[in-house]
C-alpha cells in the first residue's frame, strides 16, 4: 500500500523533473516493514504512519540545510512584499522604478540585519555584553525547545507520534511552579524539588497515553491531543483558585516563584540565560547515552522499527511504550521549568505558548537525534529571539517569523521537493544503523 503511494508521487514528479527523479528512486521506494502485515487489525495504518515518520527522520542533513535556505529565501520575498514602503513605491513603479528596488533592498537588508542583531550579535551595542546578548537570548529561547524536543525525539524513534508535549509541559510547569511559590525550602533543595516537580508532572501526563496505548491500543495521537486540552483547561481552572492567585488579586496569574526555586543566571544579571540551558544540554547527553548505548534505548529503537519483531525477540513492548511516554513526558515537563523557574517565574494559561508544538518541529528537524535536536532548537530559538527586533526595528509583522518556521517544516517534510529545487542527488540509505 505504501509502495503504491510512493510510486504515484514519483510519477507526478517525473515528467517535470526528469533529471532529478531517477536518482531519487531508491529513496522513494524503500522496503516497507512487512513483518506486521498478517492478522493484526490496525497494523496496516500503523505500519504506514511509521514508514512516513521514518522517511521524514531519514532525510539527509543537506536536505535540512537546504530547506532552511529555501525557506529563508521565500521568507525574503514575503518580507519584501509585506513592507509598506515597497508597496507604496510599487504603486508608482513605472514612473520611478528605482524607488521600488531601493525600497526592496532596504526592506530585505533591514529585515535580515534585524534578524541577525536580534538573534546572533548586535554590533550597535555599546559594550561587549550588549554585543553578545542576542545570542544568549537565542539560547534562552532554545532551552525549553531542547528539553521537549528531546522527549519527542525518543517517542518518534520508538514509533510513538506524541503530540502531547504541550499538555505535559503545562502540567510539569504547574507542579514546578506550585512547589516554587507555595513551598519555602532552603537554597539548592528548593530548586531541586521544583525541577523534580516539573519532571514528575510531565511524566504523569505522559504515562496516561503510554499506559492507554500499551494496554488498550488507544492511539497515542488522539489521546495526547485530548490530554492537551484537558491540561489547558485544568490549569485555567486551577488559576481561578485562591491557592494559585496572588494575595488581593483575582487575576489568573500565580505569585512569582521564590528566588530559592529559580534557576540561577548563568552569565550574571545582564543576561537572561539561566542554568536551565546547561541542564538541557546535560539531558541531551543523557538521551544520547540512553538511545545509543543502553539496552533500554536499543529496545526502544527496536520497538520503533518493528514492534512485532521486537516482541518475537522477547522484548516487552508494553513496558517500552509506557517507559517511552513517561520519559518523553518528564522531558516535556522539564521544558515547563524553563519559563516558570527560569524566564517568567510565574504560571499563567499562556505559559506553554506554542512550545509543545514547536518542539515537534524541532524534533523532526533534528531528525530525533540529540545533537540535531539541540541545533534545531537553537535555530528556532534564534528565530523566536529575532521576533522583537524584526517587529520593532524592521517594522515587520511577527507572523513572518512563523511563516519562515512553517516553510522550514514544509520543506523538511518533503525531501524530494527540496532535492528537486536544488538538484540534489538522493542520498544512499544511510540510517539503517539508527532505526
Amino acid at each position, binding site marked *: 500500500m505504501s509502495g503504491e503511494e510512493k510510486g504515484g508521487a514519483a510519477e507526478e514528479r517525473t515528467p517535470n523533473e526528469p533529471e532529478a527523479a531517477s536518482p531519487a528512486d531508491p529513496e522513494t521506494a524503500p522496503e516497507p516493514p512487512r513483518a506486521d502485515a498478517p492478522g493484526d487489525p490496525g497494523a496496516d495504518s500503523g505500519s504506514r504512519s511509521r514508514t512516513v515518520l521514518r522517511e521524514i527522520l531519514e532525510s539527509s542533513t543537506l536536505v535540512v540545510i537546504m530547506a532552511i535556505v529555501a525557506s529563508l529565501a521565500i521568507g525574503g520575498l514575503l518580507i519584501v512584499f509585506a513592507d509598506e514602503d515597497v508597496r507604496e513605491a510599487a504603486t508608482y513603479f513605472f*514612473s520611478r522604478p528605482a524607488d521600488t528596488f531601493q525600497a526592496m533592498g532596504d526592506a530585505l537588508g533591514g529585515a535580515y540585519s534585524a534578524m541577525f542583531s536580534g538573534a546572533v550579535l548586535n554590533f550597535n551595542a555599546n559594550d561587549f555584553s550588549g554585543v553578545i546578548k542576542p545570542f544568549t537570548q537565542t539560547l534562552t529561547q532554545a532551552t525549553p525547545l531542547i528539553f521537549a524536543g528531546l522527549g519527542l525525539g525518543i517517542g518518534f524513534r520508538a514509533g510513538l507520534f506524541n503530540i502531547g508535549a504541550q499538555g505535559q509541559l503545562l502540567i510539569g510547569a504547574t507542579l514546578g511552579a506550585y512547589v516554587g511559590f507555595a513551598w519555602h525550602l532552603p537554597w539548592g533543595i528548593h530548586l531541586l524539588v521544583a525541577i523534580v516537580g516539573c519532571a514528575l508532572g510531565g511524566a504523569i501526563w505522559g504515562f496516561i497515553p503510554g499506559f492507554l496505548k500499551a494496554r488498550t491500543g488507544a492511539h497515542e495521537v488522539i489521546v495526547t491531543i485530548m490530554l492537551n486540552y484537558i491540561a489547558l483547561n485544568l490549569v485555567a481552572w486551577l488559576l481561578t483558585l485562591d491557592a494559585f492567585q496572588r494575595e488581593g488579586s483575582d487575576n489568573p496569574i500565580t505569585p512569582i516563584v521564590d528566588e530559592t526555586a529559580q534557576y540561577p543566571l548563568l552569565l550574571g544579571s545582564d543576561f537572561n540565560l539561566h542554568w536551565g540551558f546547561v541542564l538541557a544540554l546535560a539531558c541531551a547527553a543523557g538521551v544520547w547515552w540512553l538511545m545509543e548505548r543502553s539496552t533500554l534505548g536499543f529496545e526502544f529503537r527496536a520497538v520503533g522499527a518493528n514492534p512485532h519483531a521486537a516482541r518475537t525477540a522477547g522484548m516487552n513492548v508494553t513496558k517500552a511504550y509506557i517507559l517511552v511516554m513517561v520519559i518523553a513526558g518528564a522531558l516535556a515537563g522539564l521544558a515547563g521549568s524553563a519559563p516558570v523557574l527560569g524566564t517568567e517565574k510565574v504560571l499563567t494559561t499562556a505559559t506553554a505558548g506554542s512550545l509543545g508544538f514547536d518542539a515537534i518541529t524541532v524534533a523532526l528537524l533534528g531528525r530525533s537525534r540529540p545533537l540535531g535536536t539541540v541545533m534545531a532548537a537553537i535555530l528556532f530559538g534564534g528565530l523566536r529571539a529575532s521576533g522583537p527586533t524584526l517587529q520593532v526595528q524592521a517594522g515587520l509583522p*511577527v507572523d513572518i517569523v512563523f511563516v519562515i518556521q512553517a516553510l522550514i517544516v514544509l520543506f523538511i517534510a518533503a525531501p524530494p521537493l527540496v532535492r528537486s529545487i536544488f538538484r540534489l542527488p538522493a542520498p544512499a540509505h544511510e540510517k539503517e544503523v539508527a532505526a
Partner: protein
Amino acid sequence: MKNTIRFGAVAAASALALAACSSAPEDGDAPEGAEDYKACMVSDAGGFDDASFNQSAYEGLQRAADELGVETAEAESTAESDYGPNLEAQVDAGCDLIITVGFLLGDATAAAAEANPEVNFAIVDFGYDEPIDNVKPLFFETDEAAFLAGYAAAGASATGTISTFGGINIPTVSIFMDGFLAGANRYNEDMGGDVTVLGWDGSDGSFTGDFENQTNGQNTAQGFLDQGADIVMPVAGPVGLGAAQAVQSAGDAWLIGVDSDWSQSAPDYADVVLTSVLKNISNAVFDTIESSITEFSNDPYVGTLENEGVGIAEFPEGVVPDEVVSELDTLRDGIIAGDIEPSTAG
C-alpha cells in the same frame, strides 16, 4: 513545475503592473509637526487582532501616529516569553513611552520600568499596589456603564429574564457582569420589578472558557434564550459574535455589545443590538500619548462615566420605556456623584 513558476511570476508581475500606474509622490513634502516623540506598544499573547482590548489599544496608537504625528513602533507577543524581549527591543529602539496591554504584562512592565528609569511606561487594564514612578496604569470602571446597561435591559425585557456570560472569569470581564447584575437589581428595587439575571450571581457564573470559540458563545446564548431570557450580554470579545447569531435567529431578543459600539463594529447584527457598554481604551491610550509628550505623570488614568472613559451607546427607538430612559440620567448623575454603588460587591 517550471511552467507553474513562470505562470506565478507572470501573474505576480501583472498584478504589480496594474497597481503600478499611479504617479510618484513629490519629494520634500514631509508631514509638518512631526514630533520627535516615539510611542511604542507591546501586545499580550492575544495579538493586536484580538477584536478586544489589544486591538482597541492599538487603534489608539495608530490614531496618535495619524493625528499627532508621533513615531510609533509595535511588538506583538505570541507567548509569555516574548514580553521581556519585546520590551527590551523597544527600549533599545529609543521609545519614549511604551504602552503594554493587559495584566499578563504586569511583571514584565514593572521589571522593564525599574531597569530603565529614563523610559516611561503605561499599562492597560492593570494597576500596581505600589505606584511605580515611570508607569502609568490605565483602568476602567466598566461596572458604572454596565450598571446602566443592566438597568435598561431589565426595563426593556419582555420576559423578565436577562442574561450575561463571560469568556474567562477574570476581573476585567466579571466587572461588566457585576455592574449588569447590580443595575438589574436596582431596577427591581426602584420599579418593583421581578427581573431575573442568568449567568452571573455576584461571584460566579457562565463562562465559555476562551475568547475565541464563537460556537461556544452561540450555544451559551441559545441556552439562555431557551430558559426564557430575551437579552444577552456576552463579555467575551469575538465569542460574543456567536451569541449575536443566536440572538438574531431567535428574532424577538436583544444583544448588548461590550467594549465598542457593536451597532458600528458588528453591522451585521446592528438590528438586534440594544446598546453597548463602551470601554474607550483607544481614547485612553491616545490621551496618554498626547499628554505624555509634554509631561509624563504616573497618576492612574481611570475611565469613568464622568470622563467618558466608559459609557453606553444609544438605544434603538422605542425599545426601552421612556421612564427608564429618563431614570438612567438620574442614575448616571448618582454614580458620578458617588451616591450609587454600581456593583454588587459594595
